[in-house]
């Protein structure tokens, strides 16, 4: 019987890449479970495979072997088109370099994922305004990314990630490009999203102080999960 509280279930996942004629093993026999509303920090040194694991969880890449079940859906069986559709509904992304579209305003950037939904323009505007107010950016709606500071851009990116009310939020080094104060603000915001809105968050970081803000931590080393640390 399915555990209703379980939102993520990774079972015996393997992933490798081809580098020229060489096969580089990135993840080996990864198994992990996560409950709804968790805030997990995936930590480890560079090249340990934590971003690769995050990409697999987010449905950006395919596993070589194993299964990844998110909220009851085995995403390893989905076609590329179905996976894209699934991502647009279930996953919110927060990137290290914010990855806002430079030709769009803050408001338009947040509206972007909603274009893939059947919401009317008026409904979209309502959702975008709500998301921007959560991140305290409602006074910067008409600003373009280059008119915003790094911290402000990351807050807009977080608004974009939550605007569709996704099942999980994945963050890849969300504070990696920020100064200390901005990083703290972003982590506070993520903490609030997890605590107040019940969002499940998986965050990749190599910064121990950022990792401490999560409720649980997993360490990856050379593609292997080390639960003992």
């Amino acid at each position, binding site marked *: 019987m399915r555990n209703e509280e379980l939102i993520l279930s990774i079972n015996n996942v393997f992933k490798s890449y081809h580098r020229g004629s060489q096969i580089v093993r990135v993840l080996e026999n990864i198994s992990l479970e996560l409950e709804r509303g968790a805030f997990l920090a995936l930590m480890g040194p560079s090249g340990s495979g934590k971003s690769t694991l995050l990409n697999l969880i987010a449905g*950006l890449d395919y596993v070589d072997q194993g299964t990844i079940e998110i909220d009851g859906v085995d995403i390893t069986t989905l076609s590329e*088109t179905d996976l*894209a559709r699934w991502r*647009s509904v279930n996953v919110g*992304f927060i990137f290290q370099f914010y990855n806002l579209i*430079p030709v769009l305003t803050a408001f338009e950037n947040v509206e972007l*994922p909603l*274009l*893939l939904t059947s919401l009317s323009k008026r409904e979209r505007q309502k959702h975008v305004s709500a998301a921007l107010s959560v991140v305290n950016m409602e006074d910067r709606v008409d600003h373009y990314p280059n008119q915003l500071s790094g911290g402000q851009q990351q807050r807009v990116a977080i608004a974009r990630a939550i605007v569709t009310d996704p099942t999980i939020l994945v963050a890849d080094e969300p504070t990696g490009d920020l100064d200390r104060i901005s990083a703290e603000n972003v982590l506070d915001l993520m903490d609030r999203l997890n605590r107040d809105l019940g969002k499940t968050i998986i965050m990749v970081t190599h910064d121990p102080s950022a990792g401490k803000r999560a409720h649980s931590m997993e360490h990856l080393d050379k593609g292997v999960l080390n639960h003992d640390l």
Partner: protein
Amino acid sequence: MIFKILFRNAFRHKLRTFLTVCGMAVAILSFGLLRTVIDAWYIGVEASSETRLVTRNSISLIFRLPLAYRDTIRRVDGVEIVSYGNWFGGYYIDRKDFFANFAVEPKSYLELYPEYVIPDDQKVKFTSDRKGCLVGKKLADRFGWSVGDTVTLTGTIFPGKWDFILRGIYEGRTKNIDETLFFFHWNYLNESIKKIQSTSVDHVGFYIIGIENPYIAAETSEAIDKFFKNSLAETLTETEKAFQLGFVAMSEAIIKAIQLISLVIIFIILIVVANTMGMSVRERIGEYAVLKTLGFRARQITMLIMGESMVITIIGGITGIILTFPAAMGFSLAVGQFFPVFNITGETLYLDMAVTVTVGLLAGIFPAYRAVTVRIAEGLRRIG
């Protein structure tokens, strides 16, 4: 929003887009002009009637036919009107002031060419004055001639100074009618050459024959030529269109070269636009990866890139099409004596638009394919 993104993306690198748009405009302008040059070459063919036949000496156009053939041709079934004429080959004042001039039998000739629109009084005066001449409006404008003026041509085939009184100015019923022709009475020529070229007297360069309907053209032509088989001057009869095509065929190599150049121009601009799109997409591959991460699918990414390519080519194409009109006018003024009718046809405009759309689509295909097929993780790595 998709349109907003593609429009804003198109003008992200203003200088690059401006230069590409300029290139596209110049390419479409050149393509349109070259197409118009080719059309101008074929204008005689376009303007020819399916109910007119041309009979000439089967050896060559420079050999003449006896005037006596006229009555025989008239008796052929299906023939309604027979007219005749000679190429005169004269020039006005200076050799460079050259234009096409013919000695024709005026009444029957004008009856065969209703597309020459002449005021009734001028028509009467021209047909009744043996020394009268009829010219096209463009030719009259070129030399500032008015009805009643005396025009003197210098003969090259028929030497001497030839005085004519301008009795009429015609205009074309449609835009593709040549308005640079000069006609005068064949009788005036025939009587005048009795002393200087007695062998040419009562001989014509060609017959123009009006037939009942186009469907009998082949059998009528055959019947005419059969009459004069084994005579001293055998005939070759063909439709006016085939006759005109024979002239065009003499310049076929040039026409082919122009067609080739116009295709090369389009190929070059295709490479230029594809290069612009390739650079843009390469620079923004991370952004497309972000869009894919958010759930945008291949179709939407393709639409963004193809749309951007289309925006650039359509702006350039429309600019080129608009500029083609003044350019064609200038070209026509400069070389009007070689191309009496130099009009941009609807077909050329449709081709311009088709080329614009084709270049836009083709230039976007490979960049779009690249953006769609790049792995998201790989695309995201390009950022930062």
